């Protein structure tokens, strides 16, 4: 039997004005388990808390009911008071007789009567309370960053800066991501490589950071603070530790017709390659689909020219297991495929390109060495048409595109238009837009400069179709403001393709039990207040995997994700919320229903051996809750058919006791 103390607060006149606090204290004294009751002007004051502490000692209290303001206000306060008096803090219950009683009811008899009932419900609950101790779990002080674009790089650097070890897993042979493919960046027009490559070098040189390039995450087990991750290092047929990145192999490789994905297949590379000059790690990789040596054993040139002896044709995929305390997802984005947009003739003409291809065409390290030339004939285009919102802002039932605004297209199109006019003032540049969206520091000014200083024609209206006609592309479009249909003879058409999350994100989300929206963007724990955390504890989001973002936003989010990781890794132990679900193994059917409704993947199943009354053993499948992952929503408790699952702190028995107390 509990020994419960009831403490009724006046809250000045806030409560005492409409509730007869003395009568409440008297009435509750008669409740089962109650051995002491008192009332005081301000329970939350030091004197009020001292009164509670003294009563706990004097009356040997095992439970406390405070009739006061909302538990959202002072539950934490009174739990601390209880703890200070040597009581388990979870032996405290609050009866909310202010916000939900004295403030909403007018007269004293009504208020008093309701306050007594609320008090009784709290007493009934405390009678069934048990001391709870928050679970503790150790924290592996190492973070994993999945994705080595600017988001992943920045997050890794920030975490490493705080003194924690970080591993980056990047599926491509080099880190750098999309930003490495860009030419200039808006709105300042500084060169992407100039600001990105030093960061890549920082990553390479930081002794806290390990890079797993050409690698993928294949399995994630465990939970916040204790993830077990398996990483597949794909065979690159080059010993990373020996390769000096001299490039002799790539020069001598006779297989020259390999599509160069770094340049979006607009030119070719060799079967052994280093994606670009500033690659990190600067290590060659053999493309097994094209290498003659790997395909039919006839060649071996790279091995002969490699002075370091780094070539290893027998290399196999390698699986590495590592432990991490936190995981940051930074899987980034890709432009959507233009295959379905027949009207823009992307597949019919080489001179219809996407904006990312345009970036490569203007990049000094690109296929044209930075000269803006038509992919079809290498001539200088005199008339260029840019089309915005290709595949963005589509209706939900439109299968070609995406419902959302891709956010970055307005600005990069303005940038492309401006740079073209700057470098080639003889070029005629037209941009077709639906809306120009430029919220961002110096963004609108940038767009206006493109129009006013650089003479880019902005036309409101969408392009209806692009018709290849000899060397020209006839762009049929509407000018909605002039009320005209236009037919422009263009030399080059640039499509601002919508962006979508990388395809690797969906299987990764499944592995992490992290939730995604219908567009495969990762969902944040709270859209406003926890934007860089996944609802799955210990999983954080960085960059465009969470939604379309430009570089400054990505870097800001990367830093924010890093700070969350640092906050987690700085702890030696994680103390959880003790109000978590718990399964009674004796009653568990092993049916998996709870596992299916758990939003956090906190429930797993294991085969457990039971001793039966007849001394035989029985192996049964039972649920077990990981208290470090469970957030205590209680959804599983209702889903459980046998009632084996219960929620500590809000046990079925306790809630039923409250119901009974109220309905008496």
């Amino acid at each position, binding site marked *: 039997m509990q020994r419960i103390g009831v403490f009724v607060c006046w809250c000045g006149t806030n409560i005492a004005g409409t509730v007869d606090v003395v009568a409440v204290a008297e009435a509750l004294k008669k409740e089962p388990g109650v051995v002491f009751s008192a009332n005081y002007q301000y329970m939350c004051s030091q004197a009020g808390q001292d009164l509670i502490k003294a009563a706990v000692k004097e009356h040997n209290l095992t439970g406390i009911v405070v009739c006061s303001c909302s538990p959202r206000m002072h539950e934490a306060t009174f739990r601390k008071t209880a703890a200070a008096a040597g009581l388990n803090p979870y032996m405290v219950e609050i009866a909310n007789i202010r916000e939900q009683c004295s403030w909403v009811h007018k007269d004293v008899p009504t208020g008093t009567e309701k306050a007594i009932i609320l008090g009784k419900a709290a007493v009934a609950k405390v009678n069934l309370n048990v001391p709870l101790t928050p679970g503790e779990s150790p924290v592996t002080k190492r973070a994993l960053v999945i994705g080595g674009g600017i988001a992943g790089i920045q997050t890794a650097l920030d975490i490493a800066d705080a003194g924690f070890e970080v591993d980056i897993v990047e599926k491509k042979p080099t880190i750098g991501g999309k930003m490495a493919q860009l030419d200039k960046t808006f709105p300042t027009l500084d060169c992407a490589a100039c600001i990105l490559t030093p960061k890549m070098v920082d990553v390479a040189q930081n002794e806290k950071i390990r890079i797993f390039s050409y690698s993928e995450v294949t399995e994630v087990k465990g939970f916040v603070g204790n993830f077990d991750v398996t990483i597949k290092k794909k065979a690159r047929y080059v010993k990373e530790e020996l390769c000096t990145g001299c490039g002799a192999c790539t020069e001598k490789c006779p297989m020259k017709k390999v599509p160069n994905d770094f340049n979006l297949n607009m030119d070719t590379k060799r079967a052994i390659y280093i994606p670009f000059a500033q690659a990190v790690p600067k290590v060659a990789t053999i493309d097994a689909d094209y290498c003659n040596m790997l395909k039919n054993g006839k060649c071996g040139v790279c091995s002969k020219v490699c002075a370091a002896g780094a070539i290893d044709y027998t290399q196999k995929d390698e699986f590495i297991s590592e432990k991490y305390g936190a995981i940051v997802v930074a899987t980034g984005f890709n432009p959507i495929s233009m295959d379905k947009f027949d009207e823009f003739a992307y597949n019919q003409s080489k001179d219809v390109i996407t904006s990312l291809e345009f970036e490569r065409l203007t990049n000094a390290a690109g296929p044209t060495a930075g000269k803006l030339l038509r992919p079809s004939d290498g001539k200088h285009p005199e008339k260029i048409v840019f089309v915005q*919102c290709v595949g963005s802002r589509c209706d939900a039932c*439109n299968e070609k595109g995406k419902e959302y605004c891709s956010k970055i297209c307005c600005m990069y199109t303005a940038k492309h238009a401006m740079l073209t006019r700057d470098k080639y003032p003889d070029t005629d540049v037209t941009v077709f837009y*639906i809306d120009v969206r430029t919220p961002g520091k110096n963004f609108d000014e940038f767009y206006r400069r493109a129009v006013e200083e650089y003479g880019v024609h902005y036309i409101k*209206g969408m392009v*209806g*179709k692009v018709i290849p006609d000899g060397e020209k592309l006839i762009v*049929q479009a*509407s000018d*909605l403001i002039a009320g005209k249909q236009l037919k422009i003879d263009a030399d080059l058409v640039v499509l601002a393709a919508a962006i979508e999350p990388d395809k690797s994100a969906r299987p990764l989300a499944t592995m992490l039990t992290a939730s995604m929206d219908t567009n495969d963007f990762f969902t944040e724990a709270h859209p406003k207040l926890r934007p860089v955390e996944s609802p799955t504890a210990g999983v954080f989001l960085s960059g465009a995997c969470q939604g379309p973002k430009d570089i400054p936003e990505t870097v800001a989010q990367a830093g924010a994700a890093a700070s969350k990781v640092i906050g987690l890794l700085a702890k030696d132990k994680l103390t959880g919320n003790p109000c978590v679900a718990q399964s009674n193994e004796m009653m568990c059917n092993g049916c998996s229903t709870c596992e299916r409704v758990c939003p956090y993947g906190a429930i797993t199943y294991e085969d457990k051996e039971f001793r039966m009354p007849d001394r035989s053993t029985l192996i049964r499948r039972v649920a077990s809750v990981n208290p470090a992952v469970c957030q205590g929503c209680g959804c599983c408790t209702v889903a459980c058919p046998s009632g084996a699952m219960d929620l500590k702190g809000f046990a079925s028995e306790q809630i039923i006791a409250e119901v009974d107390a109220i309905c008496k």
Partner: protein
Amino acid sequence: MSNSKKYLQEELIRISGVNPKKCMRCGKCTATCPAYDEMEYHPHQFVYMIESGDIEPLLESESLYKCLTCFACVERCPRSVEPAKLVEAVRLAAIRKQGNNRLTANDIPALLDEDMPQQAIVSAFRKYTK
């Protein structure tokens, strides 16, 4: 909007099954329209004018009979608004009025000539007659 206008608007929306509010005013329908030069009001204007209830001018307009119903606008609309179906609905609203048949049997002989496929006349007759 007056009641009669509102009624007409609702009628058109009902006949066509199109929600003009989904339009984001990109004008791709008009950009893609092969009959643009023939039309006084263009597909995006149909959508916009029906949404704003300004339907009378459309009912009067020759544009109704210039639309080829080729469905290029329907195919390419990013918002799945389906402008051609709205044009069709306005056309129906126009010809359903007493004496508003666009084409009568008497008009047909005059239209017959060597170059005109007869199928076109048949389908026009179906389309433009109550």
